[in-house]
């Protein structure tokens, strides 16, 4: 890697500050608001230019809502998101649309995210038309070029999504995200619907594209081994909050938060000889509509103390580039 890229890496592309996204719970005949689901509750992190930043957690932890709130596909309730120096949380829809050229999204299910009635050529050309880029001939040229970048050929352009396999469809979804030459791609579970042998093809493709095009990824997934492979830094979420954040070597090597420790020990190892000290968590994740007071993990934590029930821990540095929100370390 050249020195200039290393230097670029220090630069922050995305800055998230105390992001909160709450959904109202309505009940009764009048549909009055009777409570809130705190899907994302005070999340802060920074993503450097050119890195892959992973967000892991179990279902309902708020990782997907975080991803969508970053692009304002869901309106955040509070907090700030700064992208490339610009505050996008207060931005009007006109300037937001211009900025969305630089921020794209890839979804989990390539069967649901591509319009079944449109040919691939139309699916890929649409972002260019929406943003008024190029003339028809130039657009077609760009479509063919991007399709080739993701490993498909121009003769497949006039086909419909159902004529492709899951892996190919995910390649098309990636191509669509690349059409506008974005700086940031938020990928929400991009490989979890794919077979193992196809999953590695897509991960390799995304890695190649990052090097070729200088992309930055926010990579959201529940599969801890995939995130470890793909990302440099990782945030672990539980019930709407980041409980631990750090360089992957230090986070996977010396997990600090009891939840991260349990999560990592739960992953079945594809190595039958490995004797693992498994921490099996008791119970289930509490409802985010009624999150426990203090540390949200205290109801399942094997090391819970009195303070955990009362006071919410904040993210604190435990070592170079490694933070955790846990009273054990304060």
């Amino acid at each position, binding site marked *: 890697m050249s020195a200039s890229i290393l230097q670029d890496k220090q630069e922050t592309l995305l800055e998230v500050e105390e992001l909160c996204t709450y959904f109202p719970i309505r009940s009764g005949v009048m549909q009055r608001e009777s409570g809130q689901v705190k899907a994302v509750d005070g999340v802060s992190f920074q993503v450097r230019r050119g890195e892959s930043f992973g967000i892991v957690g179990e279902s309902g932890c708020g990782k997907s809502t975080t991803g969508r709130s970053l692009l304002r596909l869901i309106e955040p309730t509070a907090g700030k998101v700064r992208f490339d120096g610009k505050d996008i949380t207060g931005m009007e829809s006109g300037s937001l649309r211009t900025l969305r050229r630089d921020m794209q999204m890839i979804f989990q299910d390539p069967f649901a995210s591509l319009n079944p009635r449109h040919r691939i050529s139309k699916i890929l050309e649409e972002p260019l038309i929406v943003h008024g880029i190029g003339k028809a001939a130039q657009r077609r040229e760009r479509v063919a070029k991007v399709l080739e970048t993701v490993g498909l050929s121009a003769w497949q352009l006039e086909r419909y999504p159902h004529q492709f396999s899951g892996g190919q469809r995910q390649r098309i979804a990636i191509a669509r995200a690349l059409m506008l030459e974005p700086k940031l791609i938020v990928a929400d579970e991009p490989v979890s619907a794919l*077979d193992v042998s196809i999953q590695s*093809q897509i991960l390799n493709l995304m890695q190649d594209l990052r090097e070729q095009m200088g992309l930055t990824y926010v990579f959201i997934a529940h599969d801890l081994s995939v995130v470890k492979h793909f990302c440099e830094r990782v945030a672990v979420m539980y019930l709407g909050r980041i409980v631990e954040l750090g360089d992957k070597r230090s986070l996977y090597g010396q997990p600090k938060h009891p939840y991260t420790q349990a999560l990592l020990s739960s992953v079945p190892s*594809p*190595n039958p*000889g490995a004797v693992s000290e498994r921490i099996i968590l008791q119970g289930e994740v509490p409802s985010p509509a009624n999150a426990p007071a203090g540390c949200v993990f205290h109801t399942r934590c094997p090391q819970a103390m009195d303070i955990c029930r009362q006071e919410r821990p904040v993210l604190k540095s435990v070592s170079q580039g490694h933070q955790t929100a846990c009273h054990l370390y304060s």
Partner: protein
Amino acid sequence: MGSNLLEIHNLHTHFVTERGVIPAVDGVDLIIRKGEIVGVVGESGCGKSVTSLSVMRLLPQPPGKYAGGEIRFKGEELIKAREKRMKQIRGNEISMIFQEPMTSLNPLLTIGEQIIETLRVHMPIGKKDATNRAIEMLKKVGIARAESIVRSYPHQLSGGMRQRVMIAIALCCEPELLIADEPTTALDVTIQAQILDLMKKLNRDMGTAIMMITHDLGVVAEICERVVVMYAGKVVEEGAVRDIFANPRHPYTQGLIRSIPKMDEEQSRLYSIPGQVPKPGSITEGCRFAPRCEHVMDICKSKLPELISGANPAHRSRCWLNTTQEVAN
């Protein structure tokens, strides 16, 4: 070999469609012994689920068709068994659990009613005894407050709890074989760990043999003793889990093991098997894996290799590479 619980010989299960016959299961041999946990792994469309549904005779006919081979459960031929006999076997001697516990539970009946129904279909038992047995069963699968859960409906439970209930229903008649089709795929890792732990414990305590259908090699390494690897309707390799992970013989198994990111090592790039999983029935000649295989030879394209063992008789694979190597040695 008197302890074989389930023996599948040369099973062919086809789907007859307007576009032609699709051989989803294309000559599968599989043996499950009493009390063992056998993993059946493969990617989508390899025929692993159709094999298990064939054992339960749960495929609608048409379009499903048993085109050949035999399935013997404790010596009894199931393909030709009458439907009345199959009803006695299902849920009583062989049980099945599925990936999505919400769609396999009846949303209009309480958890208790569903367990009691299974019990009373298969054994002469009064309502009160059945209720007690249902509560006992829920406790056995690790459900706290079983007395009140018996009265609740499926939608009131979480995914992990529903899968525990499914396991309770499946095991309430103490079957000798449990077929689990991707039982933890829809669950979170910490809940998956709980369920796998439970299945291991029930296997140990009740001696139930388990046929574990999964795409996750981690799950196989975790709880299975033997594993059968399937590709495009055929078994390509089988053996003890330890042998297969340490020394995979078929290039497909090798590729599969190499493609998964490992937690305990760093790879700058993942290995990936080129090409795509073939549609069932699209390859009819030679080795089904030949178009994606790195070591493909001329013979692979024209002639299907047999499933044969090397020095270790329990470790068999279906690859010309292995046969020619042995001939050469």
